[in-house]
């Protein structure tokens, strides 16, 4: 037990050295802190990093204009590595170090995990990284969400396919991850199958991080599926397309919005499939994101620019809204005031990424209208094929 001395010294040293000067609710005379908890590492790092940089761009934009009523916006991001338990830890750290509001709330399960703490602490949050119905239904006093659910995003595509292509003997299939995100994907599938009264194959589940989809596509083939939800997060999608191309399967493919990520398009190019995607924002590179890209170029390094994708845009929009709400509170912003401004029904401009957004006291969700996009990886183009609509 003699080593316990060392432990004692460590404990004392740490407790005295690391105790931060606590800032009341993340605001000082010169700074205001907005937090993110995002998967900056792990298989979802591609999207987590982008979301972080989206926040950074919004803050840089505000700070270039002299900040929010004289205060500089500081973005502080905790890495949760795509693990909900670490999302909780990240939030605890934010609370401790002082945070005014929260944008990135981890992936779906992470958001679910921290909801009670957000409520307890009364932290304003705009969920945007990974839409989760439970975040706003029932309404939590300080939690808002922008963006349509994965279910709506996928259902919109299936509806478009059903109405415009309606293949002979349509048979629907889905390959989805075996987590909460995959659950939402499967719900969209079930909803479409019920709504269109079409034939369906049994859903196929795969473990997060799986690379090889040979067996899954062979099952799709032997089931005669011709409308497929490729429910991967990122690199799974090109792999599924590749295996399908081996047998030249005649497929209509619906994907989650991640399919508008440039690296994924590049990887999918050789296999001759175009696929659908759905989104509630304008695609990257379109006119709608022109302003965002301009600000980004002014505020990010070369390396950081490369990390941008559509998740940067949603992160940007949500952070921008939070900043604007704080600005509307004037010189002495409080959390309660920011929440009040958010749900006041007044419009928030998103710099053209979406139509101006609003929340209301009884509606903490916005930007739920979805547009179906056709992605042609060879041409590198993303073409809207429908207008924004509610699903």
């Amino acid at each position: 037990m003699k080593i316990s001395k060392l432990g004692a010294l460590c404990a004392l040293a740490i407790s005295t050295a690391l105790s931060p000067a606590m800032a009341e609710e993340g605001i000082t005379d010169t700074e205001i802190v907005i937090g993110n908890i995002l998967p900056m590492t792990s298989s979802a790092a591609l999207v987590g990093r982008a979301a972080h940089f989206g926040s950074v761009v919004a803050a840089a934009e505000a700070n270039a204009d002299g900040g929010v009523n004289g205060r500089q916006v500081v973005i502080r991001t905790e890495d949760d590595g795509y693990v909900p338990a670490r999302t909780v830890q990240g939030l605890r750290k934010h609370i401790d170090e002082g945070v005014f509001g929260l944008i990135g709330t981890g992936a779906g399960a992470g958001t679910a995990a921290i909801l009670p703490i957000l409520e307890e602490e009364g932290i304003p949050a705009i969920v945007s990284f990974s839409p989760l119905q439970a975040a706003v239904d029932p309404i939590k006093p300080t939690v808002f969400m922008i963006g349509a659910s994965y279910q709506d995003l996928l259902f919109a595509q299936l509806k478009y396919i059903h109405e415009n292509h309606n293949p002979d003997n349509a048979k629907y299939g889905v390959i989805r991850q075996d987590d909460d995100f995959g659950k939402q994907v499967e719900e969209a599938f079930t909803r479409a199958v019920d709504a269109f009264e079409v034939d369906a194959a049994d859903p196929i589940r795969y473990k997060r991080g799986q690379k090889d989809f040979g067996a899954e596509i062979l099952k799709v083939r032997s089931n005669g599926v011709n409308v497929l939800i490729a429910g991967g997060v990122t690199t799974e999608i090109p792999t599924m397309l590749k295996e399908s191309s081996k047998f030249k399967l005649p497929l209509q493919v619906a994907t989650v919005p991640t399919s508008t990520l440039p690296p994924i398009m590049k990887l999918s190019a050789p296999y001759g499939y175009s696929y659908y995607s759905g989104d509630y924002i304008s695609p990257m590179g379109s006119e709608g994101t022109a302003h965002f890209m301009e600000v980004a170029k002014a505020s990010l390094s070369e390396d950081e620019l490369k990390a941008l994708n559509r998740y940067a845009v949603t992160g940007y929009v949500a952070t921008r809204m939070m900043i604007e709400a704080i600005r509307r509170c004037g010189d002495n912003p409080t959390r309660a005031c920011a929440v009040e401004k958010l749900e006041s029904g007044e419009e928030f401009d998103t710099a053209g990424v979406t139509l101006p957004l609003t929340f209301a006291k009884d509606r903490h969700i916005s930007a739920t209208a979805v547009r179906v996009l056709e992605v042609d990886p060879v041409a590198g183009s993303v073409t809207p094929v429908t207008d924004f609509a509610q699903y």
Partner: protein
Amino acid sequence: MDLFLNLVASGLVIGSIYGIIAIAFAVIFKTTGVLNFAQGEVMMLVAYVSWSLGTELSLSFPVLVIVSIGVAALIGIIVERLFIRPMIGQPIFAIVMVTIGLAVMLRSLIVIFWGADAEPFNAAIEGGLVEIGPVVLFTEQLFAIILFFAIMTAVFLFFRFTRIGIAMRATAMDETAALLMGVDVRRISALAWAIAAVVSGLAGITFAIMFSRAPDLWFQGLRAFPATILGGLDSPLGSGFGGLIIGVIGDLSEGYIGQGLKEISGFIVIIIVLMVRPYGLFGEKELERV
């Protein structure tokens, strides 16, 4: 039947990759008694360097392979010299832990150096289709299977007939005796790491061509664990066949049962096999002397 054959073929492809990595595990374990937890990361490093060489210098595929083999051997030797050799004489446990630390380091280094995005690994062998009866394979998938058997043959010949290969086997059996016979045990350790880096590196390159060059490539190292355990940790050839078995069982169980079984069928298989043969299918039982 069509489904069955294609599932088997698909299982053989991925099983070949597992098998090759498993050979790498076994070569190091057999000669030094260390299970190298950083094997997947070393493999990833080789694949990344090879990808950079391929895109920067636009080498033809055969030349790229030869250059990559050289690079891989060098990586293996450097890693062994920097991280493993200073630990010689320490408890095996500590050395295994060093490989775990090494794995964490390499993973981070690669992202710092190459970024977090996945990129296609374009190579001349890629993209064509081969039809064998009802079975359809991409040329690179066929390449994976051929590579597997080529490496199996090479490893067999090396350990059976070359002087140094025999010396390595001798070291594995009795280090002290090997020392007395004039075998340089340190050089053997470096050589084992080099061979493992080359072998696994080739698997990494092939995997990157089939899928993408991405920072989660290291995970295939873990996937190959069941293979090497199934075949026997001290049996490179057995480990190789273990890979094929795990690959095929994985795809068949996914094809006919589903429920995400593909990812854990390998683990279920090794538990069952180890109940019957505690040293793997082809591993040797250690003799206990009293």
